[in-house]
C-alpha cells in the first residue's frame, strides 16, 4: 500500500515534468533502467574513443589532428559526466567497469565497426554523432535530473562534432577522385550501422513503453530514427554522395523519407558480441585498465599516506 502511494506520487511528478533527483524515492525498476542506460551511454563515449583514436596518429593536417584530438578529449569528458550521473544511483565506477569487462554491460554497437580510412572519421562525426545528437537532444528532457543535465552539456559539444565530421565529408567530396571514392565508401559502410543506433523498431523494443511512461525516453526509437534520416539524406545529397539504400525515397504526403529494410540479423549479431570489433575494443579497454593498475594503486597509497600524516599532525 505504502509503495502504491509512493508510485502514484512518483508518476504524478513525472507527469508534471518535475525532475527526479538522486535522493528522491524511485521505483527499483526505474533505478535499474537508468543504471543500465546511463552506464551504457558512458561506456559508449569511452569505447568510442578507440575507433577515432585509430586515426589520430594519421590525421592528414595539423588542423584536422587538433580537431580530432579535441573531439576525443570531449568524448572522455562526456564519459566522465555520465559515470558521475550514473554514480548518483548508488553504484561506483569500478563496478560499472567490471560489468563492462565481464560483458554484462553494453556500449553502442556502432563502435564495433572498424575505421578503415580517414573518411571514416568524417562519417563517424557526421553520421554517428549526428544520430547520437538526435537521441541526446531528446534526452535533455529525460526525467532523471543528473542525466538530463549531463545531456544539456553534452549536446552543446556534440553539435560541434557533427559539424566537424560533415566538414571532413565536404572536403573529401570536393577533393580528388580518390578522396570522393573514400567519402562514398565510408558512407556506404556507416549508413546502416548509424540508423541501427536507434535500436529495434518500436514494436520489437523491450524497454520502450515503460521508459516512455517514466519519461526516461521522450521519443520512440522509430520517431528518432526518422528525424535523423530526414535531416541527413539532404546533407549527403547536397555534397553529391549517394546512400546505400535503393528504397530510400522522399514521400511527399508523409513529409518524410521512406527507407529500406534494416538488417536486424546483423544488428543482433553485433549486439551479442559478434561484430567485427567487439573483441578488440573490449580487450583494449581491459588491457589499458589492467596495465594502469599499478598507477591507481600508487595514487591510492600516496593519498592514504597523506591522510595519515594529516591526522597525526
Amino acid at each position: 500500500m505504502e509503495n502504491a502511494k509512493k508510485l502514484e506520487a512518483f508518476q504524478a511528478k513525472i507527469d508534471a515534468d518535475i525532475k527526479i533527483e538522486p535522493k528522491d524515492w524511485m521505483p527499483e525498476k526505474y533505478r535499474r533502467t537508468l543504471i543500465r542506460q546511463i552506464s551504457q551511454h558512458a561506456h559508449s563515449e569511452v569505447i568510442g574513443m578507440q575507433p577515432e583514436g585509430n586515426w589520430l596518429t594519421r590525421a592528414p593536417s595539423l588542423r584536422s589532428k587538433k580537431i580530432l584530438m579535441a573531439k576525443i578529449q570531449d568524448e572522455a569528458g562526456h564519459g566522465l559526466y555520465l559515470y558521475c550521473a550514473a554514480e548518483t544511483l548508488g553504484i561506483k565506477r569500478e563496478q560499472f567497469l567490471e560489468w563492462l569487462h565481464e560483458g554484462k554491460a553494453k556500449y553502442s554497437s556502432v563502435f564495433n565497426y572498424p575505421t578503415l580510412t580517414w573518411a571514416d572519421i568524417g562519417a563517424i562525426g557526421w553520421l554517428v554523432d549526428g544520430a547520437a545528437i538526435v537521441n541526446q537532444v531528446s534526452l535533455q528532457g529525460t526525467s532523471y535530473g543528473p542525466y538530463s543535465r549531463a545531456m544539456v552539456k553534452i549536446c552543446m559539444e556534440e553539435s560541434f562534432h557533427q559539424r566537424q565530421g560533415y566538414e571532413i565529408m565536404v572536403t573529401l567530396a570536393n577533393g580528388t577522385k580518390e578522396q570522393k571514392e573514400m567519402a562514398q565508401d565510408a558512407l556506404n559502410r556507416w549508413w546502416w550501422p548509424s540508423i541501427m543506433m536507434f535500436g529495434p523498431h518500436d514494436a520489437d523494443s523491450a524497454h520502450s513503453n515503460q521508459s516512455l511512461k517514466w519519461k526516461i525516453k521522450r521519443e520512440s526509437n522509430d520517431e528518432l530514427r526518422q528525424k535523423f534520416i530526414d535531416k541527413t539524406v539532404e546533407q549527403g545529397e547536397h555534397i553529391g554522395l549517394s546512400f546505400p539504400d535503393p528504397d530510400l525515397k522522399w514521400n511527399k504526403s508523409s513529409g518524410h523519407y521512406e527507407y529500406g529494410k534494416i538488417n536486424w540479423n546483423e544488428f543482433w549479431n553485433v549486439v551479442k558480441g559478434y561484430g567485427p570489433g567487439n573483441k578488440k575494443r573490449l580487450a583494449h579497454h581491459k588491457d589499458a585498465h589492467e596495465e594502469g593498475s599499478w598507477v591507481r594503486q600508487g595514487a591510492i597509497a600516496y593519498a592514504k599516506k597523506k591522510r595519515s600524516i594529516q591526522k597525526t599532525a
Partner: protein
Amino acid sequence: MNQSLYEYCLRLGDTPLILSQRIGEYCSKAPHLEEDLAITNVGLDLLGQAENFLTYAASLKEELTADELAFKRKEKDFRSFHLVEVPNIDFAYVLVRQFFIDVYHNLFYTSLCNSKDETIAGISKKSIKEVRYHLQRSQDWIIRLGQGTEESNHRLQVTINELWMYIDELFYDNEIDNEMTKEGIGVSNREIKNNWFNIVTDTLNDAGLSSPENIPYTLQYGKDGFHTEYMGYLLAEMQHLPLLYPDAKW
C-alpha cells in the same frame, strides 16, 4: 639570418609536434579516464605550440605551409629531441618523459618570452601558461607515484634511469642556437642546464627517487638532423596520408 631563424623555428616546433604525436598514440590507454582527459589536453597544447612555430617557420619561406613542414619533410630535416621520440612503453615512460620536457619547456619559454622577435615572444607567452600547468601536473604525479607503492616507485626509478641518457641533448647548443642567442632572438640551452637539474633533483628527492649519475652518451643530436630508430616509424605513420595522396587537400 632568415635561414637561421627558419631553422630555429623548426626546432621550436618539432619537439612539441613529435611529443604530441606520441601522446596521440596513448589515446584511450591511460590508467583512468581523468588521466586520459588530462594527457590529451597536454597533447593538444603541444600540438598548438608546434603549429604556431611551424606556421612562423613556413612564413619565412615562399610558398611553404606548416602542414608541408609537418607532413612532407624528411626525417633528416626534423629537429626534435631524441627524448620525445621514445615510445610510450608504459605510463612511467609517458610521465617521466613529460616531466623532463615540462621542466625544460618552463625554463626555456620563460627566457624565450623576452625574445626580440615579436612572433617568437608572443608564441612563448601563450605557451608558458600552458607548460606551467603541464609541469604542475607531471611533477605532482612524480611525487605521488614516487611516494606511492614500492612498485610505483621502482617503475619510475627504472624509467628515470633509462631516459637519463637523453637529457644531455636538451642543453646542447649548436651554431644556430649561438647565433640566435647572440641576436637576442633565442635562448642558450646551456644556461638553463643548472636550473633544470635543480628542479628535477629536488622533485626526485621529494618523491623518494634519485637522479642517476650523469654519463655522457655518444648521441648525435636531433637539431643536427640525427634521430632515434623510433623516428622513422613515427613519421611513416604520421605522414602516411599526405604522402600516399600527394595531390589531395585535407
